């Protein structure tokens, strides 16, 4: 089939900020404001048909000289076409928010809660935006690069 990156570029033009196929992994970097629209198209369009949201995570590029401190990373897989695509969207520290994919995939719910828990990125439109691995009352987001590895916090019991 045709190059998947080209298909996405043809459809979305300027919304695709960058792309690469490093190590054979097709990757597009998109504008975060259009993430919901792009993902919906990738899922429902016949040419792409990415029905699996395999993974959702974030990376903190603190001190790496990037304009946007965070990147939210989505891994998509299409069962029919047997292809994979990585979609990334940059998120700044000041405005650490992005639209939730929970309306598109049921599985996005927990993945997004985890990213919120560990990176402090808020997912707008998420039905239940609260911590998942850590407890309510934990201060900070431990996978941020400025969270010290040896920091200790008292374990507070659950509220309910």
């Amino acid at each position, binding site marked *: 089939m045709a190059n998947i990156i080209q298909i996405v570029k043809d459809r979305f033009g300027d919304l695709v900020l960058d792309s690469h196929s490093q*190590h054979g992994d097709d990757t597009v970097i998109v504008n975060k404001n259009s993430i919901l629209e792009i993902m919906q198209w990738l899922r429902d369009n016949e040419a792409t048909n990415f029905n699996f949201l*395999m*993974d959702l995570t974030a990376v903190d590029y603190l001190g790496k000289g990037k304009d946007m401190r965070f990147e939210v990373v989505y891994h998509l897989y299409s069962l029919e076409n047997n292809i*994979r695509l990585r979609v990334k969207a940059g998120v700044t520290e000041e405005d650490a928010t992005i639209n939730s994919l929970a309306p598109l995939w049921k599985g996005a719910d*927990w993945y997004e809660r985890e990213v919120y828990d560990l990176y402090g990125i808020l997912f707008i439109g998420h039905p239940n935006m609260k911590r998942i691995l850590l407890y309510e009352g934990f201060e900070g987001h431990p996978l941020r690069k400025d969270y010290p590895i040896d920091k200790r916090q008292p374990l507070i019991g659950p509220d309910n």
Partner: protein
Amino acid sequence: MPTEQDSRMEFGSEPMVLNMGPSHPATHGTVRFLLKLDGEKIVHLETEIGYLHRGFEKHCENGTWTQAFPYTDRLNYNSAMQNNVAYAMSVEKLLGIEDKIPERTKYIRTIICELARMCDHYTNLAAAGLELGALTAFLYLVEGREKLWDIIEEICGARLTSNYVRIGGLASDLPENFEEKLIATFEENKVFYDEFDQLLTHNRIFIDRMRNVGNITAEDAISFGFTGPCLRAAGVEYDVRKANPYLAYAEMDFDVPVGSTGDNYDIYLIRMEECLQSERIIRQCLKKMKAGPINIDDPKIRQRSKEDISNEMESMIFHFKNQISGIQVPAGEAYVATEGSNGEVGFYLVSDGGGKPWKCRVRPACIPLTAAMGYRCQGLMLADIIPTFDMINLIGGECDR
């Protein structure tokens, strides 16, 4: 399914809130269910995880690439070898040395992955029997698993925390007479497996607890991100070993069982069949495997043997450099998908060009399965949680990382 309002009118009672777990004798894995019950019927089930969170990613980011191996052991500790292999393959992809991995290593890695799958399925099936009251069946299959763990112990010196795979190779070659021992174990295990099969597979009580419990449609399973036996039980034929063959799977002849209803009994049958298929793959590997090197021939990556380190100046220098500064991995990112016992286990690694991972994310196979617990259990009876939760095979170490 009746709404809350309907059933309240039917029974004239308020729903009861029940806390199940995090440490409940009838579940394996540390997870808490917050239940809203109407009589014995589940109105709402909320799953809470995180009791076993150890900061896997944070630890990996603060050690060298090689030092992450012991942490990967402790993700899914029932099939630690598979995590080792998946992680090593991801780093090798970043290094661009996938083509240079010796043939023998590929076969050995396939063997240990399948051995791990058998151990995982044996444990899961046995525990499922136990938690539904079939203690005898549990003892048979766990005995079989012990024998497999003995084999794994011979390979790497540990039963669970294997730490056997290295970047670009393996820690050591297979032990002497490995093939004979493994075949003998298979023959012994056949007895246990058959006994277990006869005790449970056609057992009326067992079937009643499993059949038509926890059904899920293919569409929902995909939406949740199910992979592995649970997805295949819903009728979706997706197995990474077939879809994107890695290691030596492309040349192996094996079948992937697929169910239709997505219920617990289908998952059970699939796991039973996969044990047999794994054995089939291992037997083919043993036939095709030839003697040869097991480590890549690149001094900057290769793990030195203890003998070389003590006797060769250069080996000692490389060993020192690789241990202190870590293997230097060029900047970039890579995702490798492998078929774990519970589904797709993928490592997404980001390197900034140094000796430590900048990001080390594992896609845990059992997170989507656990997330769907509330959805699958709604409207079932309280006791149905046990088989449903059993068959997703939640491993706390992998789920909570």
